[in-house]
């Protein structure tokens, strides 16, 4: 199970947060801060796993992250997930973002947090991996966007 997905930038500013377990807002912020603290001090040439998530879950949980330019994508998962699998999933997610936003950059995420959420919803649902096939994800996202557009033009 995936317990949380966090995206924040090199300064720790959250760009998307998605908890699959309830935490009050202040706790969420604390988790983001601490996760950022842990992740940001790591070099880019070290491994992408972090243990001892005292933040969420406990010893069974790991932080698995990837760092792209200005953004960190952090997944907090338990031992039922494959570490390398999640790394691939992050890659799939980012490539999907890239397709949907056409050369995605941090600004896209800043101004379209809702859209990023909708894309993520097609990848992970309720903490479980829903779809890993990028074409399928992109197709579903586009169909829903088209539906939204048709509703706008209805008005």
């Amino acid at each position: 199970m995936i317990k949380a997905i966090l995206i924040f930038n090199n300064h720790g500013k959250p760009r998307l947060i998605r908890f699959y377990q309830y935490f009050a807002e202040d706790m969420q912020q604390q988790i983001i801060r601490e996760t950022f603290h842990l992740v940001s001090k790591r070099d880019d040439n070290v491994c992408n796993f972090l243990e001892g998530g005292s933040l969420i879950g406990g010893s069974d949980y790991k932080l698995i992250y990837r760092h792209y330019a200005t953004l960190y994508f952090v997944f907090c998962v338990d031992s039922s997930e494959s570490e390398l699998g999640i790394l691939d999933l992050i890659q799939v997610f980012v490539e999907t973002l890239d397709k949907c936003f056409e050369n995605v950059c941090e600004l896209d995420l800043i101004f379209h947090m809702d859209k990023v959420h909708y894309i993520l919803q097609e990848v992970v649902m309720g903490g479980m991996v829903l779809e890993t096939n990028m074409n399928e994800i992109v197709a579903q996202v586009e169909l829903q966007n088209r539906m939204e557009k048709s509703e706008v033009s209805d008005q």
Partner: protein
Amino acid sequence: MALKIVKGSIDRMFDKNLQDLVRGIRNHKEDEAKYISTCIDEIKQELKQDNIAVKANAVCKLTYLQMLGYDVSWAAFNIVEVMSSSKFTYKRIGYLAASQCFHEGTDVIMLTTNQIRKDLSSPHQYDTGVALTGLSCFVTPDLARDLANDIMTLMSHTKPYIRKKAVLIMYKVFLKYPESLRPAFPRLKEKLEDPDPGVQSAAVNVICELARRNPKNYLSLAPLFFKLMTSSTNNWVLIKIIKLFGALTPLEPRLGKKLIEPLTNLIHSTSAMSLLYECVNTVIAVLISLSSGMPNHSASIQLCVQKLRILIEDSDQNLKYLGLLAMSKILKTHPKSVQSHKDLILQCLDDKDESIRLRALDLLYGMVSKKNLMEIVKKLMLHVDKAEGTTYRDELLTKIIDICSQSNYQYITNFEWYISILVELTRLEGTRHGHLIASQMLDVAIRVKAIRGFAVAQMATLLDNAHLLTGNTQRNGICEVLYAAAWICGEFSEHLEDPMQTLEAMLRPKVATLPGHIQAVYVQNAAKLFATVLRKHEGETDSHAAQETSQLLIDRLPLFVQSANLEVQERASCILQLVKYIQKLQQKKVEVAEEVTALFAGELNPVAPKAQKKVPVPEGLDLDAWINKPPSESESEDEKPKAVFAKEEPKHSRSRHTEVDEKELARRREARKREQANNPFYIKASPSSQKVYDAPGVEHIPVVQIDLSVPLKVPGMPMSDQYLKLEEERRQKEKAERKKEKKKKREKRGKERKADSGPESEEDIAPAHQVDIVTEEMPEVSSCYFGVIKPTVHWFPVQKSSKHKKKKQKKEKEEKEKKKKKRHHHHHHHSNAGGEDSVQNGTVEEEEPLPPMSNYFLLAENSYIKMVYDIQGNHQDESKVVVSVIFENKSDSFLKSMEFNVLDSLNSKLQRPEGAGAHDSLTVPFQLPPGISNEAHFVFSVQSIVMPQKLKGTLTFIVKSDESSTHEKLDFKLHFTCTSYLITTPCYLYDAYAKLLESGDLKGSSLRLEGINMPFHHLLARICFHHHFSVVERIDSCASMYSRSIQGHHVCLLVKTTVSIDAKCDEPSLLGNVLDEIKQTFSKC
């Protein structure tokens, strides 16, 4: 109305949308909070409007603010309003907001049930999809109960998009509403074979999560998963399944055996590292659960280690990390395979990535041996010096200590080296682990008597240079070692070269800046030193020096009397008064040293960690009984779904603690008493534990004389390295000596033998110092010899094929003993080389592989259960034998409440726990799931052992299947052969053997075996194995063999290749019976 709409949309043009909000926040970096609060006011206004578009926009902005940490739960009702919009665009915004901020405590959730139901059954698949996604995040028990049916219907939706979402969300529904699992499960299982790969993957996902919570209930799905594993090409699905198998195989080792092959194939064929890694992981889990008896077992381990090596050598840090992680799992069961990659692991210590270094450290912990400990620790010490950042350095420090101290300092051969390491570690700046180093110093100094002189010298230097440790306030963690140093110097002050100097060091004014508890130890031990100094000076009749010492204390102690710390104050004033009194006596020329010394007489001994166990629990005190009512288990609802498929009794429910009735309590008490009776660590008449650790011949091993002409002047001058060198030299020398001796002997015998030039084995490395472990209970003692029943907890079936291994172990053991003996003899310079060599000759050489043999005979069998048994005597008790019975469940049902009973005879009696009646049965301490076997041990007391005997007995048990449970009974006959009273007793001295034969005390008998056509060494091996003999000497065509009964009868055989046996024994009827049994053994072949 129309006007209103128009007005609404005009208003909207002036509303901020999400982008405007974000832009605004970015433009108000200085007063962000203020800006956001005005925005929230605007949003509140917008939410008051009727226009759903305005509301939706406001809710969307709230979702963004929620991410920034603002509580938006006040808008929960508006969110529900937006969710109920008929437009997909708004509905999606509503559900997103709900999924971000709704939780079980949100009260408006109960208003959403009907809306969600409507959305789930919407004709538009994306309405349904959005509702499912949202629901997956905020489903409550109520929602789960009300909507379970609707979602279940969706699992068969025509669109795969909906099906996969419905399947996934079922997991959340099961968690919140466990009752839904049973009706939904058949459909869920169906989805494992859904044509759409996404749906299939979702179903695998859900079942894997369920199985992780309670693997037992999903064992039955193993064949289906097995099929999926061999057919699926989707790596995601494969990974999930393989991970699931990893969780299932400990419960069902047969599954593991089946898995090895397909997994190995996958390992060879896949190019996906993630899949490869998970395969390796599961193979490791399988091998751990099988633990033995796999034919190509070592090949699989080799393959795993080899693949992991590739991962570790990869430049990708992630692969490196995971490789190390998996390696540590192998290490637990197959340390040898990992140890050969020591070089690689040590390399990883140099890695720039701290996580990798920590992993490598973990591995090293398990890899040390006597041989490589010094080398590994030396490497680690280098890293300590290089390490940046205290966390990692502290980690290194604790690891070094862990590595050295593990299992009672098992791997340390030279404690002087270890003390030096500890002293070197005190140089670490800013470490938090001063107390750890201190406790090690104390432990070693107390338990290793031989090291005290050296330790005291080192500690004195530490005390003398205490200012180096405490000079920097940053280093306060390390000053804890002064606690140990002061105590060691005081307690073992007789070893001090210059106690006066140390005493002076301990009373320096600077000491008053140390923490109170350390000062207290200083003061107390200053008194001990004082006693030593007095005694020393009195011997010299130098009263002046003694008086000076008293004066020193009287001058310095007042500083401590003024201490703010009560402990220090109390001790200091007490000792000050004492010294003043002594001074008075000294002035009167009274000899006081002896009396002062008497104050501190008596040795302080270490207390075994398990000493508490030796204190019997007082009658009537029930340590297991709850004093207060136990807290209710909040997890119980999580627990419930597990039981749904279970073929298990209701004992599963966690709340059983509260329901314990009187009867149950009484039963438990009884069980505990029985356990106590069996517990070898309880004080009772057991001739037990001491003998375990007398490693023979230790005192003869030369201890290296360390040249201490270069004493430590500065604490922490690196000098531990010299021990590494010395140790190597010592080993070289020993090895050389051993070789020399061997050579000598070889020459003497004039006979050529294979030189034993193989690598040094662990046993060959003799420790230079011995840890005092008499007070430590060693786990080996608890082996079956003591208890009536040894509860064997594992459910793994006993491998029938493991007998071969057992035999091998036995042989190894013999060989080991021989080695020990041999060393022993070297030191005594006995002239029995001839006898020894004949032993060497006599060992069963591997001329041809032996067929597997078993000593377990069938006891009884019916359609439910099979029992095989073996009887063994033991050296400790001449009137006891242990019957080991393997119970194998042959049925598909669960076997429980097994009770074992035997009708005692006058001669042989089943040992029952104290208080039990002579006819009471013993409870077998385990239950048997289908197909599982387990072993229990029963002790019998016997009086006469010269005749074989049969005892009738009964096993009763309850067969529990899905629908019913029946009570079953199985009768058996235990056959106590005379062989079972014999104990394999190696006889190494042919001379002694010959003397025994010549003594004339033995009566002879002989036997001819007909129709034997097996190699002679097989024949011998069989006699050794089945009848507990050992070969004394083998000369071409005949062999002498020896065994002893538990009551000390000698049994000697001369076996000839003509297959006749001449035998002698001091008890003719015993001999006759043994020979009959040997005959029987071979008539069966």
